[in-house]
């Protein structure tokens, strides 16, 4: 199981004179759960946007599922799924309709669409609610529907930007249960950003801590903890490499976007 499914080489993104992501190099194995950690503004979202072809890099390169993000963007798009931090399903449609539109956009064969949608709803525990308008869903249900929508076409890599932000602990557990199932049943590689350290600790095979656009540390949680000596927690590791606890920092826009998401889901 050591096939590389994502490989970034000196990936860089500048906005004017500000370097949001600075020569990021990392690789992720197939079937791995990889967590990108960092304070607000560390460059996590910019990294995900480049890897999902939403934002062209200023320099450097990355290959996702074997395709170049700069020259084979459409192939990359067919091979990945993406759950943005903000709500990405339409509240004025039913859960079923949200899935149907994406089944069509991803060219699922007409004969398979209905079975796939039914399976996806079942898999995410939403069978009873498929016919309801999404604006009547709870926050956890919305997130599960978004994951269903992003995985209808069985992507090799699923990117999730802060998948559990704004959810209560029970809903967070339910989302994680379904993500783990995805990985187990379909071998989907999960690449996610989070600033909940306990989630990184219990679910991620490996993590990278980003600070000021660079990777400050990379490894399993255990490795990073022991690298600091005995009796260190992941929080200590984070403070050591990122300079402060994960919820500090960020611009007005980061913070207001996050709160808006929390409010919509909550």
């Amino acid at each position: 199981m050591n096939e590389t499914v994502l490989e970034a080489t000196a990936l860089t993104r500048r906005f004017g004179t500000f370097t949001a992501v600075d020569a990021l190099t990392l690789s992720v194995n197939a079937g791995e759960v990889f967590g990108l950690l960092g304070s607000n503004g560390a460059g996590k979202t910019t990294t995900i946007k480049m890897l999902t072809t939403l934002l062209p890099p200023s320099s450097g390169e990355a290959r996702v599922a074997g395709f170049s993000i700069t020259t084979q963007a459409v192939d990359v798009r067919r091979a990945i799924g993406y759950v943005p931090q903000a709500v990405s399903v339409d509240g004025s449609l039913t859960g079923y309709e949200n899935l149907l539109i994406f089944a069509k956009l991803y060219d699922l064969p007409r004969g398979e669409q209905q079975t796939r949608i039914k399976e996806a709803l079942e898999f995410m525990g939403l069978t009873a609610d498929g016919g309801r308008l999404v604006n009547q869903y709870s926050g956890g249900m919305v997130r599960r529907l978004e994951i269903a929508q992003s995985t209808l076409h069985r992507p090799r890599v699923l990117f999730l930007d802060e998948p559990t932000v704004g959810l209560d602990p029970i809903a967070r557990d339910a989302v994680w249960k379904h993500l783990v199932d995805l990985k187990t049943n379909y071998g989907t590689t999960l690449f996610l950003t989070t600033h909940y350290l306990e989630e990184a600790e219990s679910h991620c095979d490996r993590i990278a801590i980003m600070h000021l656009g660079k990777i400050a540390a990379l490894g399993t949680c255990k490795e990073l903890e022991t690298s600091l000596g005995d009796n260190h927690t992941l929080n200590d590791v984070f403070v050591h490499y990122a300079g402060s606890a994960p919820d500090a920092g960020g611009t007005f826009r980061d913070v207001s976007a996050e709160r808006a998401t929390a409010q919509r889901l909550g």
Partner: protein
Amino acid sequence: MSGSFIQPLAGFVEKTFVITEFEIRKLRHDFTELITRALQPALWLLIFGQVFARSGAMNTGNIPYLDFIAPGILAQSVLFVAIFYGINVIWERDLGIVQKFLVSPTPRAALVLGKGFSAGIRSLAQAAIVYGLSLLLGVKLNWSPLALLNVLLIVILAATLFATFSLVIACIVKTRERFMGVGQVLTMPLFFASNAIYPTAIMPDWLKIVSHLNPLTYVVDALRTSMLAGSTSSFGLNHDYAVILLTTTVLVLVGARLYPRLAS
């Protein structure tokens, strides 16, 4: 034509209709918008139209004034439905919906044209309303199937044109506040610098030039020719169609180019 050319084209057309379906399904769940949209053309025809028709101030040749402005008011209400369409995209951007569509393998031009086209479908309701009011007011309509088909096509194309224009603006300004400002600034000049409620013949020369550069003028001309019994076109129906189609194509291409900006 080779298969390698037809396949992407078929894919493009198919995806365009999926995006349109997405928009139309939303409308199916909430009809209220269609009803509130009916109010504006009713006010223009029943109040403005009636009063100006009585005043006899406008020389509209052998066509009564009310007949003259009925197609103009249809064009206007199509413009108003379409021109604020970009606000939806900004809303979808503030959520994560635009990003989700952009990460899918859908051609960008299909995302743009699909949205524009759905404005066209919405605008058919405006056509029904204006026809209803026109009947009520005794406007002499042309009921030949060809004329009706032309009206249908022109309404859909015009809404697609202005909705795409609106999307282009949304991609540039990106925020709701700025968009509303720009939208307000554009709508009235487009409307008044056209032949919608008065003939271009009575305009000062500079305004005549502006009105000839305004796509709405050609929409109104095409609608007037097709809707009314015994009306003749100022530019020729083919010329009108050519201007509308060409403008739409250019706007779709520009929009496809700018659409990814919404994700950054």
